[in-house]
């Protein structure tokens, strides 16, 4: 019964996200992998916002109250879409037949598929067989979820030491427990392997859309061969979710760049908003995305200024509303992160001396540990001869995001009281987690810059 309830709780999120995406992209359906991957994240994001609203309204949580919104969405969208069902199904069948005809079945593909399937199995297995055992999970993440579950409210979260931390992960864990009807230290981790799989789906879908099946599989193999990425697939931390939402938002921005359909922008904005509700750093990453979109719009000479402003608003507004919702909650309780001693700004000549150790630790983590497999080394090698090539805007954007992330780490280390986590003695517990947030972009760059190896014409990466 437990496994059925947990399965139901995950399926409800996925199905709700699926219906919303189906409605939003009914004219141009997304490829199945992107669709499934994004649907799950959308479901969790909506769940977290709904639980926050319920909590702020002091409505006691239970599985029926929480799932009422999903049931309403499903009823509303399912009946609204029935008329269109026949045509869209026919279209998707045509697409499937076409892609199947193009599919080259080789030994490499089978091995790669087997490798990916084994790793997904491994992550699910480890996640559902190793109970909560991580520092942050005991101290805040899962403990908050446990308090939400037992108290059926968020009233007491304000008294936690890190009360201002975003609540998406605790809410999603509590949601599993509400459906299960009891607190189980293993089942509540089901959310993480599901996000891991959803992440792989969107990453695969993105690379397949941009390059081809072989390149997409190589990208997936590169990403899952990273030990830290796999590790965060089965531990109860927020970092995989952060990477997922950031990657999802940027992929949607790239899709918008190709098709100029404002629904991609809106969806990217939603993912950006969910990112701010996943981890404190998510707010900065959302800022990077705004900067990246501004650069994209400035680069696009064919778009009128009015259209550019509209596009920017279509991305910024959903994220801003989600961010504002949580900001109001924090301000009303006086728990904003500016009160966190680690966020204290420290600027001076002395703090500049932290630059060297921080850079050293970054290099050690990227090249001398087994956290990232050989990805960063491959990226360095892929940069050879880059000056002679014409780079596509997506590649430039990925470089921009990568650069901003490194600058962010350096800023945190040199200008705030968090130095010990990035350049000091605690760096193994802080720095790799920040690297994980943008590691997928390094993999994407490796694949995009080496497109010539995947039988794609060299019209610039």
């Amino acid at each position, binding site marked *: 019964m437990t496994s059925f309830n947990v399965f139901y709780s995950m399926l409800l999120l996925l199905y709700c996200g699926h219906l919303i995406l189906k409605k939003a992209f009914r004219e141009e359906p997304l490829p199945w992998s992107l669709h499934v991957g994004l649907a799950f994240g959308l479901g969790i994001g909506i769940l977290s916002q709904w639980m926050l609203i319920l909590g702020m309204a002091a409505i006691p949580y239970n599985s029926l109250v929480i799932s009422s919104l999903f049931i309403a969405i499903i009823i509303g969208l399912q009946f609204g879409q029935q008329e269109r069902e026949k045509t869209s199904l026919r279209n998707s069948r045509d697409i499937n037949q076409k892609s199947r005809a193009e599919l080259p079945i080789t030994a490499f593909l089978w091995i790669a598929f087997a*490798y990916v399937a*084994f*790793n997904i199995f*491994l992550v699910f*297995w*480890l996640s559902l*067989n*190793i*109970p*909560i*055992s991580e*520092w942050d999970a*005991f*101290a805040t993440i*899962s*403990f908050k979820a*446990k*308090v939400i579950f*037992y*108290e059926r409210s968020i009233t*007491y979260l304000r*008294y*936690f030491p890190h009360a201002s931390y975003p609540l998406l992960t605790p809410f999603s864990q509590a949601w599993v427990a509400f459906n299960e009807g009891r607190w*189980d*230290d*293993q089942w509540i981790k089901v959310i993480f392997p599901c996000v891991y799989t959803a992440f792989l789906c969107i990453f695969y879908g993105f690379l397949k859309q941009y390059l081809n099946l072989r390149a997409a599989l190589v990208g997936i*193999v590169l990403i899952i*061969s990273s*030990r*830290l990425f*796999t*590790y*965060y697939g*089965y531990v109860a931390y927020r970092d995989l979710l952060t990477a997922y939402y950031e990657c999802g938002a940027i992929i949607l921005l790239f899709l918008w760049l190709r098709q100029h359909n404002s629904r991609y922008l809106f969806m990217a904005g939603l993912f950006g908003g969910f990112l701010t509700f996943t981890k404190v750093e998510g707010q900065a990453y959302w800022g990077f995305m705004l900067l990246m979109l501004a650069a994209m719009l400035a680069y696009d000479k064919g778009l009128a200024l009015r259209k550019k402003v509209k596009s920017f608003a279509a991305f910024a507004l959903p994220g801003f509303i989600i961010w504002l919702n949580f900001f109001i909650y924090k301000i009303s309780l006086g728990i904003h992160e500016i009160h966190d001693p680690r966020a204290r700004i420290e600027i001076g000549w002395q703090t500049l001396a932290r630059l060297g150790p921080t850079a050293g630790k970054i290099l050690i*983590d990227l*090249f*001398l*540990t*087994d*956290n990232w*497999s*050989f990805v960063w*080394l*491959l990226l360095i*090698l*892929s940069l*050879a*001869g880059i000056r002679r090539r014409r780079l596509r805007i997506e590649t430039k954007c990925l470089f921009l995001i990568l650069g901003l992330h490194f600058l962010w780490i350096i800023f945190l280390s040199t200008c705030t009281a968090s130095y010990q986590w990035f350049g000091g003695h605690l760096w*193994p517990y802080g720095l*790799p987690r920040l690297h994980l947030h943008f590691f997928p972009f390094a993999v994407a760059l490796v694949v995009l810059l*080496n497109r010539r190896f995947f039988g794609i014409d060299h019209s610039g990466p």
Partner: protein
Amino acid sequence: MKRISLFPLALIVAEVCLIGMLAGFFYIKKIPFDQGLNLFLSFIFNPDTDFRLFQTLTLRYIFFAGMGLVFLFILFICRFAGKRIRNAPEKMVDKALMAVVCVYLLTLFFQTFGQMHYLLIRRPVFRLTTAQKYSLMVGPIFHYPIMARQILPQGRRYTCQLMTDIDTYRDPGMLKHRMLSYFLYPVDLRQIRREPVNCVFAFQKEDAVHCVPGNYEIIKQWDDRHLLAVSHTLP
């Protein structure tokens, strides 16, 4: 086609070199082969840690980097012998990429092998219940809070005072404190509900009995260092 035909050849050479280096390493260090194999597999995959084995990981990386150099050398000999130097730098990058990819594929092979090995050796542990797993992992830090939760009389909300000799302001004591709080909840050890304390939980506290305040009744004493007491006067 010629370029592709070198790929499996180089892979085989690299594998032979790897096994040779491994065997040499075990021979020099006088490590029995089965122990050596387990040691090697734990380098490749150890899911209980993520980034804490720096020394061994660095050694491992150097090991594979050495392999990469051997590999690069082989490819260099194969591809550039007798060719003009003018084109070499450009092609060198592709060759280096291929070399890294080959070494990378080897690590993938061993990593997957290590993962399977891990699943097989841990199979008996995975069959245990959550409580049994926690018993193995943290022992008393799990047992005492769970027993305390079961012993406390129903129908009241409890906010507990922890009495301990552990330094809860720094690790590993800090983690122990967080774990106790987590396992004990809904009995509130961290006082996040801001309700008056009506229970005392002694964990690893020497002579715990004498530290219990007068208006508290000891409802369970496991040993000299572990006990549970509640106040009947407070709500």
